[in-house]
C-alpha cells in the first residue's frame, strides 16, 4: 500500500502533468496545421484588435447580451469556472505537498473556506446535470457522454470533500481523490475539456470575422 500511495502521490503526479502539457501542445499544433492547410484564408481578416476585444468582452461577466438573458446559468458558470482553477491551486493540502517536494509554496485558502467553495462546485455540477435533463432545448443536444464528463469533473471534488471530512473509508477515498484528479488532468487535452484552451481561439476567430467582415460585435 505504501509503495502504491507513494507512486500515485509522487511520480504519477508528474507523469499526469507531462501528458497534460504535451497533449495541449500537440492539440494546438494540430489545430494550427489544419487551419494552415485547409483554411488559411482566415488570416486575411484575423486581427489582434478584434480578437482581444472579443476575448475580453466574453471574459467580462454579463457583458455579452446572451449572458444577460440567462443570468442564473451564466452566473453559476462564471463562478464554477473560476473555482475549478482557484480551488486546486490554492488548496492548503496541495500547497503543503508541493512545498515538500519542490521547496516552493504560495498563498493558500483556509480549509474552512475551501470546504464551502467545494460544496459550491459540486452543487454547480449538479445544476449543470439537472439543466441537461429538464430544459428541452438543452436536453435535445445532450448525449450520455455529457453526463460522463460532468461526473469526471465532479469526482475529484466529491472524493476530496468526503476524504477531508473523514466520513468513511478515508484511505480509499483519498486514493480515489488522487487518481480522479490525475485522470481529469490527463483527459483535458484529449476530450471536450479542451475547450478551456480552444475558447480564446474561438473568440479570436469570431471576433475577427464579426469585426472585419460583418462589421459587428460578436457579444
Amino acid at each position: 500500500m505504501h509503495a502504491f500511495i507513494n507512486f500515485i502521490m509522487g511520480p504519477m503526479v508528474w507523469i499526469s502533468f507531462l501528458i497534460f502539457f504535451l497533449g495541449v501542445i500537440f492539440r494546438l499544433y494540430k489545430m494550427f496545421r489544419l487551419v494552415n492547410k485547409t483554411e488559411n484564408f482566415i488570416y486575411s481578416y484575423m486581427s489582434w484588435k478584434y480578437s482581444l476585444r472579443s476575448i475580453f468582452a466574453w471574459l467580462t461577466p454579463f457583458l455579452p447580451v446572451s449572458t444577460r438573458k440567462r443570468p442564473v446559468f451564466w452566473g453559476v458558470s462564471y463562478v464554477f469556472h473560476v473555482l475549478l482553477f482557484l480551488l486546486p491551486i490554492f488548496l492548503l493540502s496541495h500547497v503543503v505537498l508541493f512545498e515538500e517536494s519542490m521547496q516552493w509554496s504560495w498563498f493558500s485558502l483556509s480549509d474552512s473556506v475551501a470546504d464551502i467553495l467545494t460544496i459550491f462546485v459540486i452543487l454547480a455540477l449538479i445544476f449543470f446535470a439537472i439543466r441537461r435533463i429538464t430544459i428541452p432545448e438543452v436536453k435535445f443536444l445532450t448525449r450520455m457522454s455529457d453526463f460522463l464528463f460532468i461526473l469526471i469533473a465532479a469526482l475529484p471534488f466529491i472524493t476530496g470533500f468526503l476524504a477531508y471530512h473523514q466520513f468513511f473509508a478515508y484511505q480509499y477515498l483519498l486514493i480515489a481523490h488522487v487518481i480522479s484528479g490525475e485522470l481529469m488532468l490527463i483527459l483535458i487535452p484529449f476530450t471536450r475539456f479542451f475547450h478551456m484552451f480552444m475558447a480564446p481561439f474561438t473568440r479570436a476567430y469570431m471576433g475577427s470575422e464579426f469585426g472585419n467582415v460583418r462589421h459587428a460585435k460578436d457579444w
Partner: protein
Amino acid sequence: MKLKKCIYIVITILFVTAFYTYSQEDSHPTIDNTVFENPQRTQALFDHDSHNEKAELEDDCSICHHVYENKKLIKDESSEDSLCSECHFLKATPENSVPLRMAFHNRCKECHFESNKGPVLCGECHIRK
C-alpha cells in the same frame, strides 16, 4: 404546533450529537500544534514512547531530536530537551531553511514510506473525531 415539534426535534438532535462528540473525545496523545498560527488541522497523532518502542527507535533519540551546528549535523548528539520549534520556524530563515511544518512532515513521512509502516496520508495523522 408543527414549528414547535420541529424545534424540539432540532434541539434533541443537537444534544445527541453534542453528547456523542463529547463522549467520543478520546485522549489520543498528540503533538502540540499551538506554535502554528491559526492551525488548520487537528493535532497530529503521536504516542511518543509507545511509537518509539514499536518502531524500535529507543536507542537513537537523535533520529528525531538531532543537533546541528553551522548547518552541519552533529552525530551522536541529541536535543530531546528542545522542541522542534526552537530551531525550526514557521517560515524558512537563513539559519534554518526547513520550516517547522515541513520538518515534521518530512521526518515522519519519509520514515513511514521507507519502512512501509505508519501513516502517510493527511487524515491518518490529523484525525477528526
